[in-house]
């Protein structure tokens, strides 16, 4: 069953075989596998539980109820906005459906550089296949791309760059464009309508608006405690304690390390919260003569991976489309005042292409602030800054090749090109410092990284912490490096594999 905090009238005391903190890709998939294996599973989710009937496809409702910090989560210096879901289903409820396997060169780097075993392409193949089948992941036929995605395919093709459709986890999609605001049609096969209901069918219990604040480890069990929030006012209502021999932390690369740091667990390496990667993202906005209307149609169905790992250094960038919702557009456009407002009058004619940098030398860190919440910092270093600059230039060329009349970057000072000839010298003259260029992340990863060496990593190949047996981290925080692709399939596959291992070794894990 799924329990909303409105149904809770007093302190909650429960016990289970497995307590999972977080209900996104990592938590949801783990819950399903373990419940199907006959384990008593309790999931606690900080955010609320909403269904398609609650989704009105407005930014106001979605940001307020479905996103971390009402979509205002950012690094401490506000240089990078970090978009994450905060609801049952986690970020899968609000992502743009792109579903891609982990690139082979990434998995090979994990084996080579971090000693990760069991996660080669071949070993993950059955899990990728299972996830793809379960979530109806498929590529869209060419006629289904909206103008904003078609411009990537057309522009890249004209320039001789590789580009193609991307996999999407949808069924009977009506192409409304609301993926990022919660799908009102239940077409997106997000975790809240797939893994979670299937886990519940097998007896799992999901508590919504339950924020875990601490994990304690005793000789007999583990105890997850926290606060129950009123789902309307977000004010504390009561508290909860869940006891279980196995605890899975699946609260994302931002909040999983926060919970572990507050609990003083799993940090003998001193690496907890470090190694944060963002898949750092900026954008170029093309102004076209024709109507682009980037808010409508499938928001993300095409990409160009021409420049990912092109130099065989594990880095590079990737181009994708992005839904042009009005607030997202307003926040991204440069400047302020009348110039900004006039730019927004071009709204229906704007095509937006995002540049996602797979980090090589940059990283960040999550710590705990004085109020017990995440404090996020990030350092963009030279090599990745170089890829970002190159990506913005390539994105602008693709836009022009697809027919844009002018292209605008996300620099704070209006930086626009009226022809491809202007791109290089104008970008060379631009400032790229903190808050001088708009930067985003929807794919924070790596803060509880996996590895064979307990001195350099937090979890082992099965996502079990090196320090505490029976304590697992299963979410995007375990990836040793940036992925270079949207992470949901990677997280789901790792979760299914790790949860299977837990189920198969439960007696042993429990006995330790």
């Amino acid at each position, binding site marked *: 069953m799924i329990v909303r905090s409105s149904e809770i009238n007093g302190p909650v005391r429960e016990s289970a075989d497995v307590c999972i903190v977080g209900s996104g890709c990592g938590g949801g998939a783990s819950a399903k596998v373990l419940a199907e294996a006959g384990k008593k599973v309790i999931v606690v989710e900080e955010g609320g539980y909403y269904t398609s009937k609650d989704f*009105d*496809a*407005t*930014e*106001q409702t979605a*940001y307020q109820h479905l996103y971390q*910090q*009402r*979509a*205002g989560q950012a*690094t*401490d*210096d*506000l*240089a990078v906005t970090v978009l994450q879901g905060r609801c049952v289903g986690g970020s899968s409820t609000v992502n743009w459906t792109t579903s891609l396997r982990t690139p082979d060169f990434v998995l090979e780097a994990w084996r080579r550089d971090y000693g990760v075993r069991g996660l080669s392409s071949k070993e993950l193949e059955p899990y990728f296949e299972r996830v793809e089948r379960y979530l109806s992941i498929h590529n869209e036929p060419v006629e289904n791309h909206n103008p904003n995605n078609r411009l990537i395919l057309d522009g890249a093709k004209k320039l001789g760059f590789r580009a193609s459709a991307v996999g999407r986890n949808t069924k009977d999609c*009506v192409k*409304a*464009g*609301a993926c990022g*605001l919660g799908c*009102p049609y239940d077409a997106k096969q997000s975790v809240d309508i797939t893994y979670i209901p299937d886990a519940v069918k097998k007896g799992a219990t999901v508590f919504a608006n339950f924020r875990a604040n601490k994990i304690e480890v005793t000789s007999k069990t583990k105890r997850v405690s926290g606060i129950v929030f009123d789902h309307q006012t*977000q004010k504390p209502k009561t508290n909860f304690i869940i006891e279980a021999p196995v605890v899975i932390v699946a609260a994302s690369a931002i909040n999983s390390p926060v919970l572990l740091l507050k609990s003083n667990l799993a940090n003998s390496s001193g690496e907890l919260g470090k190694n944060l990667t963002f898949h750092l993202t900026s954008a170029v906005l093309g102004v076209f003569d024709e109507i682009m209307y980037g*808010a*409508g149609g499938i928001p993300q169905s095409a990409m160009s991976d021409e420049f990912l790992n092109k130099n065989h250094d594990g880095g590079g960038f990737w181009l994708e489309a992005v839904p042009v919702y*009005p*607030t997202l*557009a*307003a*926040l991204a456009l440069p400047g*302020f*005042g*009348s*110039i*900004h*407002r*006039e730019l*927004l*009058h071009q*709204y*229906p004619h704007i095509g937006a292409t995002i540049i996602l940098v797979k980090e090589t030398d940059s990283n960040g860190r999550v*710590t705990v*602030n*004085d*109020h017990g*919440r995440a*404090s996020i*910092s*990030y*350092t*963009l*270093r*030279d090599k990745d*800054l170089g890829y970002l600059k190159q990506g913005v230039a390539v994105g602008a060329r693709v836009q022009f090749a697809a027919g844009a009349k002018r292209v605008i970057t996300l620099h*704070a*000072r209006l930086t626009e090109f009226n022809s491809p000839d202007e791109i290089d010298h104008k970008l060379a003259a631009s400032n*790229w*410092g*903190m*808050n*001088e260029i708009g930067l985003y992340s929807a794919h924070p990863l790596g803060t509880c990284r996996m590895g064979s060496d307990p001195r350099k990593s937090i979890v082992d190949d099965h996502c079990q912490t090196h320090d505490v047996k029976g304590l697992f981290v299963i979410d995007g925080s375990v990836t040793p490096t940036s992925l270079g692709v949207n992470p949901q399939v990677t997280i789901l596959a790792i979760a299914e594999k790790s949860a299977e291992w837990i189920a198969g070794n439960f007696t042993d894990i429990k006995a330790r």
Partner: protein
Amino acid sequence: MNAFHDRVTTRRKFLKETLFGVAFLSVSRLMPSEALLAGELSQVPKNLLFFSPREYLIFESVAERIIGLPRPGQPGVKDVGVASRADEFLAGADPEVQDQLHQLFTVFNAPFFTFLFDLRFVSFVNMSGPDKDSYILDWMTSKFGFRRTAFQALKRVSLSMFYTDSRSWKEIGYEGMFMPEDRR
């Protein structure tokens, strides 16, 4: 290494960077500057959740310049209730963010700082429109990271409160999302 990214700017460091400002806050509060505010304070809604009445007016004044003045027939900041919406929004923000924003409104508006930053010994709310724009531009493009961060905070709250409201959509040609037939 990139000049602005080679050091980690945590919120704590951000606060430290602004501490020189805090040290002068008590001085700035003594300055005669806000005659215009006095009359307008009575217009501020009661029962604010986050802003003080004075902060409410400062924010509304900033939001008007950041969003841009409307053409005839277009909605403005007051039409959409941007400041009231921001008040409700910020009441739910991280307590650390709240602390910084309270601090920011004092620093941003105080004549001591407008003089320090812009050589004008007048509070922000009492500047002319073009002077306000010039002052905001200085924050946006400042060589000091904390001023650019502050500009970002003000821009994000202002624009979010305006463009999440359906009254702002017609002007830009946004038609809302395609909803299931029984919910249109």
